[in-house]
């Protein structure tokens, strides 16, 4: 990090533990809109590994939508190549290609003269699915995005709120079960609480179906929460850094990314880091293991931790406080400060301890692990 003042284009440099082959590969892509001198996207080299979620983030007008639209050839690049699953799609029939790629546009754009069910069924109909299969699929997708099919199937878009329309937009993109999804701020118009729920469900679905997803967002929290990787775009459509959320947060490639992530944001970073993504300190229940170095606790009948029984290096036992695994490091720090304790037990949704986080660990490099086990 000696010459980090010079803005450099970060190439994908970190190979994931399981090397997935790129589902989408952009090679030297440049887009200049007619009559404009500035590039909308400049010299973009970019691999989206199979089954990954890649978050595209950056200030307004930096070419995120343009990049997304080049992937399904809604916009033709000025130069460069695009490979989809290894196949050069620069020359194939655009309409055929787009039926294989789910697309959720930024402005939603539901067909106002179609019912919600018909809106979702557009691509399956073109692909010639039979009626029953389409009906089942529509109901399934409406459930998925949290809209009760009985209430919503036969409504028209104008009878839905903006957020509900956006969810139908997501369902429509998923309709034909495409392997690749391009999503342009799909949760933009949704309230924080519903958005949080949708994000959780989105991750849950992704764990099951493992699609390759390019997801544009303006929300760094969303990018960190959902992304396997984050691509930070800068002005003029230049890719500033393409890396895992941890790397982006802890090692911004240049000043632009550092500023974008938020200068002096050490604390903010904590709120972006979920406990489930940390390599926690191992703990075990009292008596099961010989306490050679790691903390032990006493548990009740249900397996819930009630008190520390052995803490190496600590003479006076602090009270045992727990933080849920779904919380963030920020939450853990909050609890530690509040309860004046140097460590917390991190528990799963059934209150069973999964590990511990110590105050001391915060000032060291927080060890993280990959998203999926």
């Amino acid at each position: 990090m000696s010459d980090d003042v010079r803005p450099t284009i970060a190439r994908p440099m970190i190979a994931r533990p399981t090397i997935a082959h790129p589902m989408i590969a952009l090679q030297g892509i440049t887009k200049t809109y007619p009559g404009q001198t500035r590039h909308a996207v400049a010299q973009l080299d970019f691999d989206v590994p199979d089954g990954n979620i890649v978050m595209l983030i950056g200030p307004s007008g930096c070419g995120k939508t343009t990049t997304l639209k080049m992937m399904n050839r809604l916009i033709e690049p000025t130069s460069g190549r695009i490979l989809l699953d290894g196949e050069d799609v620069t020359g194939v029939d655009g309409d055929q290609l787009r039926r294989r790629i789910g697309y959720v546009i930024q402005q939603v754009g539901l067909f106002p003269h179609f019912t919600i069910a018909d809106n979702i069924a557009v691509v399956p109909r073109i692909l010639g699915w039979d009626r029953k299969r389409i009906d089942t699929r529509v109901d399934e997708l409406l459930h998925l995005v949290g809209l009760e099919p009985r209430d919503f199937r036969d409504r028209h878009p104008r009878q839905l709120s903006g957020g509900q329309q956006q969810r139908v937009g997501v369902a429509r993109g998923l309709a034909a079960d495409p392997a690749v999804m391009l999503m342009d701020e799909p949760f933009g118009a949704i309230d924080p609480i519903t958005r949080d729920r949708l994000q959780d469900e989105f991750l849950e679905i992704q764990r099951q179906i493992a699609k390759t997803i390019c997801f544009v967002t303006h929300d760094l929290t969303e990018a960190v929460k959902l992304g396997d990787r984050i691509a930070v775009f800068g002005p003029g459509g230049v890719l500033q850094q393409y890396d895992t959320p941890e790397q982006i947060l802890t090692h911004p490639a240049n000043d632009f990314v550092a500023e974008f992530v938020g200068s002096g944001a050490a604390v903010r970073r904590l709120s972006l880091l979920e406990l489930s993504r940390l390599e926690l300190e191992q703990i075990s229940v009292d008596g099961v293991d010989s306490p050679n170095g790691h903390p032990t606790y006493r548990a009740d009948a249900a397996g819930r931790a009630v008190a520390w029984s052995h803490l190496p290096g600590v003479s006076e036992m602090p009270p045992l406080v727990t933080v849920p695994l779904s919380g963030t490091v920020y939450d853990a720090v909050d609890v530690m400060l509040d309860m004046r304790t140097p460590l917390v037990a991190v528990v799963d949704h059934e209150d069973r301890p999964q590990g511990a986080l110590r105050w001391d660990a915060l000032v060291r490099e927080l060890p993280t692990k990959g998203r999926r086990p």
Partner: protein
Amino acid sequence: MGFGEYVGSELSTLGFYAQQHFLLVLYAVAAASVIALALGVLLHTNELTPESWTRKMRVGSRETALLLASAALTVPSLALFGLLQPVLGIGVAPALVGLTIYGTYPVLRNTVAGLSSVDPAVLDAARGMGLGPVRRMLRVQLPLAWPVILSGIRVATLILIGVAVVAAIVRGPGFGQPLFTGLGRLGAVNSFNQVLAGTLGCLAVAAVYEIAFFAIARLTTPRGIRVR
């Protein structure tokens, strides 16, 4: 003879004029609508201009075409039928052609306006889902533009009901015949009754069309975009 008495005695003739007038307008509006829809779609998609032209030139050429089409409306109807007569003779043919020429512009204008008013986001989504140009036009653009197009057809119909009267100058069918006969011999027996019957007849035909358009609009406007 009083007007009531006149109508009573001429009922079958007047009924015949009404039918003729109605059908003349119907055929002319149908022909004009087909021409205008086809032309409107071509103009809107810039199908008629070379790909190499800039966007500005293409939009400019579209507006020019619309301007030229509107010029047809400024030719006095009497003159137009006069001009058509040497080519098409007299009777139904010149009447139909003349009316079609007058009816095209309002429909064309509204077709282009209706197609342009479709939300770009909707089109973007349609393209993004892999709907080709034909599917997009038939499934998305035309249905959404339809209320505007239909109101253009309605305006064309009302204009043509009036212009059809003038078509009597080339022996066109309809209420123009009693009107012109009556006007030609004003002061003679029943001449005023003829003028009055022709005028009221036109109003009656217009009323029938208005009712028909109301019903058609209800029936053909997709529920999701209907203004209640």
